[in-house]
């Protein structure tokens, strides 16, 4: 085993839990706040709405909330990949719409198998992403303009494909089940068990690898308490969703099917961003494209891949949307993209590129879903909803800009 000679140069992994907490406080001071403001906002909103509406904390509403947030989480996660490059995809919502329109044409009009039709819709998403990527990375058109053009054009394309005012009922029970049915109760617990085992496994794997390399590890208690947090929070959530939440005679219990799907997307995406060279290069290009280029990174390829991932995941969010309302409209996806961007930014993803994680998108999506859900419950008009969401977005972007200023001009020795 290799060892390092004792030295003043550390890695931030040394020391006991107290040192680690001090170091975390230092990072917050330096403006590396991550999702913390969004988590605080989330808790504040939960307390606020719980005190204002007796229905807010019921198990029925709790399960609904997650289902409401699911579609937005996937869309916001899609956008994170391009936001990390300081790019934007305004067409993500209508790309989802066009993907689902293709599904309608292939499956419901031409009678093709629904699985093949879904794969075709996803492939169309990838093609759209590739096209945006070529325009942005190879030709040099700003992504704002390319995707604004597609945003307008695809609204027309959907009308052409589905007809004016076209509305098609989703006739695939498997797809409708995603947002409207639940797993058996044991399925929820199995999901949680898998999450805990995978977190533990990855934690110990990382420690073993760092040990082998001869560098310091954080106290094992820190990793274990992180896993314990997942187990406790997840346990509470699964327990709440495991009791009968129906108000009628037909019982409703179990974790909604969409939840493990969203968690899997978040896990795989985070894995790619944190643990692969592609992820590392994505952050590098977002931070300093010129430095990335000089380091031998193929910047254009990274950009194009990011747009492909974004548009493909956007189609996944389109599938969830269609599943939720049980239909596909010719006007689908027009307004949701801005909520997706808002969710990502509220969660702590920087619009300046290079900073942000998928979990931020999920937390931001929950914040926006809670505002929507809570204001609806206390009976405020829809106008208030938009006003509050807008205010939260501006607050989040302000925090981002300020913390960026702080970390840019931070402690210089």
């Amino acid at each position, binding site marked *: 085993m290799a060892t390092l000679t004792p030295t003043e140069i550390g890695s931030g992994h040394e020391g006991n839990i107290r040192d680690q907490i001090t170091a975390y406080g230092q990072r917050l001071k330096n403006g590396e706040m991550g999702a913390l403001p969004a988590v605080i906002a989330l808790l504040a909103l939960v307390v606020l709405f719980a005190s204002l509406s007796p229905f807010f904390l019921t198990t029925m509403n709790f399960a609904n909330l997650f289902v409401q947030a699911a579609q937005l989480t996937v869309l916001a996660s899609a956008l994170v990949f391009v936001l990390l490059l300081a790019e934007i995809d305004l067409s993500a919502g209508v790309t989802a719409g066009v993907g689902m329109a293709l599904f309608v044409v292939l499956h419901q009009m031409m009678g093709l198998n629904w699985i093949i039709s879904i794969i075709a819709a996803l492939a169309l998403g990838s093609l759209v992403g590739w096209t945006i990527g070529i325009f942005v990375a190879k030709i040099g058109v700003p992504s704002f303009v390319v995707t604004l053009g597609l945003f307008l054009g695809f609204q027309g394309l959907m009308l052409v494909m589905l007809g004016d005012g076209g509305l098609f009922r989703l006739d695939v029970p498997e797809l409708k089940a995603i947002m409207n049915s639940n797993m058996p109760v044991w399925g929820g617990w199995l999901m949680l068990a898998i999450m805990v085992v995978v977190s533990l496994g990855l934690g110990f794997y990382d420690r073993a690898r760092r040990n082998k390399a001869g560098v310091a590890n954080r106290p094992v208690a820190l990793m274990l308490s992180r896993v314990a947090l997942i187990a406790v929070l997840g346990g509470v959530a699964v327990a709440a969703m495991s009791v009968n939440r129906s108000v009628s005679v037909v019982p409703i219990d179990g974790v909604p099917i969409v939840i493990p799907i969203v968690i899997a997307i978040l896990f795989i995406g985070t894995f790619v961003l944190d643990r692969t060279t592609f992820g590392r290069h994505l952050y590098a290009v977002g931070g*300093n494209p010129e430095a990335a280029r000089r*380091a031998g990174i193929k910047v254009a390829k990274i950009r194009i891949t990011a747009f492909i991932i974004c548009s493909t995941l956007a189609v996944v969010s389109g599938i969830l949307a269609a599943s939720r309302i049980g239909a596909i409209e010719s006007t689908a996806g027009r307004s949701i993209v801005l909520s997706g961007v808002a969710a990502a930014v509220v969660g702590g993803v920087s619009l300046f590129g290079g900073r942000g994680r998928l979990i931020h998108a999920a937390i931001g999506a929950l914040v926006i879903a809670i505002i929507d859900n809570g204001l609806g419950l206390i009976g405020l008009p829809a106008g208030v909803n938009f006003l509050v969401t807008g205010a939260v977005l501006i607050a989040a972007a302000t925090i981002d800009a300020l913390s960026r200023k702080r970390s840019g001009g931070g402690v210089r020795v």
Partner: protein
Amino acid sequence: MDVPLIELSGVKKSFGPVDVLKGIDFKAYAGQVTALVGDNGAGKSTLIKGLSGVQPYDEGVVKFAGEEAHLHSPRHSGALGIEVVYQDLALCDNLDIVQNMFLGREEVTQGTLDEGSMEFQATKALQSLSVRTVKSVRQKVSSLSGGQRQTVAIARSVLRNAKLVILDEPTAALGVAQTEQVLNLVRRLADNGIGVIIISHNLADVFQVCDSINVLYLGRMVASLKTSETNQADVVGYITGTKTMEGVA
């Protein structure tokens, strides 16, 4: 003296009708710091871009460690062990020190990034340069001072097993204390057996740290001097063209 690490003879480069390098002879040795000075437009950048492979020379012979070398692209130069640290340093602010030092050559085991191994090697590289100003290799580069950034950029070339490190104006943006730090670092780099070429406008720095000084004037190498055998007034004379090699010879 032994074989030069890099030896240029009769190197020429022109852009259209403009001859920027008019037949340059130049040598730099392993374990020594070699200065390249000259006024703006003298051809310093063009000379360096030829060595880094970004803009290959039109004519002339390049020998690396005694063997003829063809520097057609940055890849060729990199393979030989020639690393350039540009003035803007090319660091990503949003990444930490380890991530920056391994950017573009990340170590992967079992399909994923091997953070432990990279962290170990980055720490070793910084230690080999006796760096004391960096507290943690997992600090974000955005939190580093100008001198620390320069340190990271130089350590990155060490990590890549550079044999020849070319520094473009390494102290231009630094204060007094940080300049001192970086110059010490440059000296240690040479003491570790690496050949160092420094481009600088600051003659005080050059005289403090360099073993020999080469002066470019309008595309010609007008003087190649040992630092111990010359003085600032002479070098200024060569840079401004008021003095020629014959004048002192």
